[in-house]
């Protein structure tokens, strides 16, 4: 979606209203299936199966064994019905082909609309069911609740997310809002102005760059008001918002902040900084996406045949931005006079979070390895959890292809000598 929105800019064309809504409808179906998969198959094992379980059990099979077949069936059904919509409207289940500069390649038929409406209603039920499961399994389990609310993965950083005109999260379009660690708005800008506000720090030991807020500056891997490190995640999107745009998601948003004891200041909640709360925020977003999908499916304009504005010129530059499931995603293309891309810059969702991921891993190390003592039980799992809450698969986010999740933790003496190693994969 970010790519096709960037192409709107390249070809200097504004999508028709129906074309834009069709894109957004497909995107909500994608959000539902992606958030469901991330929570149950990829992040859920950390809570539901537990951080001390062996890796062979910390997967969706382990989740299903623990919570029962019904949840497993619901997850598979949810994925299948939403992939069906993506394929039906987008042409393909992965890498849809129907997005075109100026809109969408085909309109939604009334028959398709009715099917999508029914699926959207099922998605809302599934989201509510998932939030109930989170409530029963995590919030009512003192051990897991302590894990979520402990300071092991706590960072008081800036937060970024796209909001609508009422400062409510909007995954598809809007202005990028950044708030400080106390929740005060630092800035709000149009995505096309991202280079004015975001810079990238480079470290010699990694090829992935560290984006930071220009206005604050790079001060290293530290949190606080003076550090330009920010997070762009489901938790961040809730933290930058004044409220949610749909009623059921709003109810859960209120409960979320109440659970963490956040106070309202100037009409909005103080940010929650506990990073494991990201999984809960993800479920609230799942509910929002399902509710908004229903709004779009019942919008009278959604079946309009006017789904595309045909481009007539080549402007040569475009920036497209959406909220991807893991965070703010920006595509920036520059083309020649034939519309062929000559330069491209992408800030992929997880890239935004690389600094906080690094800090979470460091924090886990500090908590697990102190004063000559090592908490050996589940050390690899707990370090893995530190980045899995941002992205289930860092190697995919960085386009590295080891094909498995190798992990090595080296314990060093203060002079650098390795005294213990923990390995997996």
């Amino acid at each position: 979606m970010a790519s096709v929105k960037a192409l709107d800019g390249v070809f200097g064309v504004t999508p028709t209203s129906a074309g834009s809504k069709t894109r957004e409808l497909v995107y909500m179906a994608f959000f539902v299936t992606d958030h469901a998969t991330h929570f149950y198959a990829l992040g859920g094992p950390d809570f539901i199966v537990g951080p001390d379980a062996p890796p062979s059990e910390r997967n969706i099979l382990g989740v299903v064994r623990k919570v029962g077949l019904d949840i497993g069936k619901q997850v598979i059904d949810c994925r299948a019905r939403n992939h069906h919509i993506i394929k039906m409207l987008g042409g393909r289940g992965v890498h849809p082909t129907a997005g075109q500069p100026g809109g969408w390649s085909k309109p939604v038929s009334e028959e398709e609309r009715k099917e999508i409406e029914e699926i959207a209603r099922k998605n809302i039920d599934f989201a509510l069911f998932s939030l109930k499961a989170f409530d029963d399994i995590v919030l009512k389990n003192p051990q897991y609740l302590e894990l979520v609310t402990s300071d092991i993965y706590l960072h008081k950083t800036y937060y970024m997310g796209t909001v609508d005109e009422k400062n409510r999260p909007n995954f598809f379009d809007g202005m990028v809002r950044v708030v400080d660690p106390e929740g005060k708005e630092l800035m709000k800008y149009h995505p096309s102005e991202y280079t004015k506000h975001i810079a990238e720090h480079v470290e010699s030991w990694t090829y992935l760059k560290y984006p930071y807020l220009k206005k604050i500056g790079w001060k290293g891997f530290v949190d606080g008001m003076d550090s330009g490190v920010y997070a762009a995640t489901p938790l961040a999107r809730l933290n930058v918002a004044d409220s949610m745009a749909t009623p059921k998601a709003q109810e859960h948003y209120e409960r979320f902040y109440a659970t963490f004891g956040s106070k309202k200041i100037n009409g909005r909640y103080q940010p929650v900084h506990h990073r494991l709360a990201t999984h809960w925020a993800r479920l609230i977003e799942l509910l929002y996406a399902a509710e908004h999908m229903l709004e779009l499916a019942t919008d009278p304009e959604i079946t309009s045949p006017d789904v595309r504005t045909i481009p007539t010129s080549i402007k040569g530059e475009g920036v497209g931005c959406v909220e991807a499931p893991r965070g703010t995603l920006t595509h920036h293309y520059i083309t020649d006079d034939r519309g062929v891309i000559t330069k491209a810059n992408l800030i992929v969702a997880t890239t935004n979070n690389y600094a906080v991921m690094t800090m979470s891993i460091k924090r886990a190390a500090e908590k697990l390895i102190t004063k000559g003592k090592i908490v050996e039980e589940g050390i690899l799992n707990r370090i893995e959890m530190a980045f899995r809450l941002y992205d289930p698969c860092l190697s995919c986010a960085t386009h590295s292809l080891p094909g498995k999740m190798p992990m090595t933790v080296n314990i060093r003496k203060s002079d650098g000598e390795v005294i213990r190693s923990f390995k997996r994969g």
Partner: protein
Amino acid sequence: MKTIVIGLGNPILTDDSVGIKIARELKARLSNDCEGVEIVELYAGGIRLIDVLAGYDKAIIVDAMLTGEHKPGTIHRFSSTNLTSTRNAMSMHDLDLPGALELGRMLGIRLPEDFRIWGIEADDVETFSEELTHQVACSVRPVVEEVMEELLTLTQYI
């Protein structure tokens, strides 16, 4: 009898696309009235396989694999009885192929009992390219012939 043929891989990562290319070749070769056989391209394994395999009696999967022990282009063959994870079927996002099958069956989803898997030893699966390396490209035709022969034994429609 319903049979699905899945070409698995990433179409823009050099040899990783060999399964996709073989699926396209098979689609071109099969007659239009080949009822009961569906050929699909799939770009991700793991749980996604459950969605695609549901409701079929037999499955044929063609994928690139990297053992590092054989020359590029070497053709590996597996069946339901010696099912082994291939690199792509072993999606690190979630589950490998045996795990996906176990999950599907645990949930009562009707999945194929009979599997035939062709794995083609890859040389390069990291460079962005839609072209196969030479030795892997040479394996396309023999695999297509073998799969066609397999389909012939499975169906009466070819």
